[in-house]
């Protein structure tokens, strides 16, 4: 019997050869995240008269595999703001814990959590920028929705590099290509916020999610939508895309299993 515990449970060296330790190499350069693993796709947001609406689907993909189909990608920050996460899901969970602990810390103060969506967005952008400067980025692209210090509706994005961008309607990921043109057609540049109703905004988001489900292969037909007004956050997390019509698919030619 071999009395060295490290040899127990292993194929015998005299039969199979010595173990190849190169598989367990611990030397060499330290590697940080250089690509996301489990990912969420687009986040879409629209400002309207008196608030902001934001939506994502409930899918987390592992590469092209639709791995988790009930992942909530809209996270709240106290009762003040919503953050919609695109990109790496584990980094989203880290940021969500970070924001929850921040909310708890803020609430120790006599006047409660006084950080608004704009403060939160500034903070998140700083966190992203710090991490990318350490060459260890948080692989997300987020939309922050809520109100600013003046009580005006606020919608802004921040990405893994710490880049920020703001507009009356925004989308991340695939949505930046597919949803933004739809939203720009519905709400042309210079449209005063007063002319965009809550119903218009919600309807536009649903339309965007439907188009994204048609054309983004990493999307799903289950989605979450949050409507943030002065009265609070109305979050629905188990919605289904309605009124699908796949008729257009018949006419698509050029890829897939086709006989003609």
């Amino acid at each position, binding site marked *: 019997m071999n009395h060295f515990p490290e040899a127990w449970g292993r194929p015998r060296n005299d039969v199979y050869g010595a173990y190849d330790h190169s598989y367990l190499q611990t030397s060499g350069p330290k590697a940080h995240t250089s690509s996301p693993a489990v990912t969420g796709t687009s986040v879409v947001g629209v400002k309207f008269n008196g608030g902001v609406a934001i939506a994502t689907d409930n899918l987390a993909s592992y590469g092209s595999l639709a791995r988790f189909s009930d992942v909530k990608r809209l996270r709240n920050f106290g009762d003040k703001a919503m953050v919609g996460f695109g990109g790496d899901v584990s980094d989203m969970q880290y940021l969500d814990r970070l924001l929850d602990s921040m909310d708890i810390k803020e609430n120790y*103060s006599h*006047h409660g959590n006084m950080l608004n969506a704009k403060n939160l967005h500034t903070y998140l952008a700083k966190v992203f920028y710090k991490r990318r400067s350490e060459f260890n980025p948080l692989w997300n692209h987020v939309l922050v929705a809520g109100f600013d210090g003046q009580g005006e509706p606020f919608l802004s994005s921040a990405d893994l590099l710490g880049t920020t961008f703001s507009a009356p309607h925004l989308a991340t990921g695939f949505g930046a290509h597919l949803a933004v043109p739809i939203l720009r057609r519905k709400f042309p540049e210079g449209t005063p916020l007063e002319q965009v109703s809550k119903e218009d905004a919600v309807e536009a988001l649903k339309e965007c999610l439907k188009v994204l489900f048609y054309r983004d292969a990493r999307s799903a037909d289950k989605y979450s939508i949050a409507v943030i007004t002065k009265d609070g956050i109305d979050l629905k997390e188990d919605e289904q895309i309605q009124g699908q019509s796949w008729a257009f698919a018949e006419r698509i030619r050029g890829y897939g299993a086709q006989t003609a």
Partner: protein
Amino acid sequence: MFRNNYDNDAVTFSPQGRIFQVEYAQEAVKQGSVVVGLVNKTHAVLVGLKRNAEELSSYQKKIIEIDSHMAIAIAGLASDARVLSNFMKQQSLGSKMTYGRPIPLDRIVAQIGDRAQTNTQHYGKRPYGVGLLVAGVDEAGPHLFEFQPSGLTHEMVACAIGARSQMARTYLERNLDKFQDCSRDELIQHGLSALKETLSQDKELTIDNTSVGVVGVTNGKKESFKLYEGQDTAALLEVLEQRESAGAEGESMEVDS
């Protein structure tokens, strides 16, 4: 020389349960010249009486602006106050950088409170020899806080610390009801009146020895901290004088009727 064996450091209790070093630090606050602070629904005011070490020297600064939304008034060791105010400036700037918001008053006061308390619990350290009045505005409106060398902090509606400050506190207690709804300018005058109460017979408020700081909200809009010193205080002192003489007449008339 020593009161007893229990005052050599700030970490040892006396058998009566007191920490003498902390009490001595509080004495240092009482040696400092007086500062008064008061708040109402819209504004927070700090007024201070400046001292000069000798006839030909300049006056010691009593009110230090931390940020555009807050300031401190100091009584006690000015050098200790400088350490604390530099710390507060850093924290305030940090909050603006990371969150894009002015730091809430209760937050920064809790931070200096914790720092001061730590100094009373480590061997080889000493308490800060300074008391502060912290005045400013945040999302929740105007605030005034008192800070003591022990690390104790209180939110106040009106407060005075420093030499002969009891006289000012008596004035503030008597006139408390008048503060809440009064205007910015009236609040300043109440502050100056309280300050004047503390003066000894041969002293008076001049443009050289008076400091006034105001911060507040007007019509929902934040008004940046404004410090009045030197010639800027002349107008305020003039109003004070007019009010005093009018007040004296009023009193005599009351006696007549």
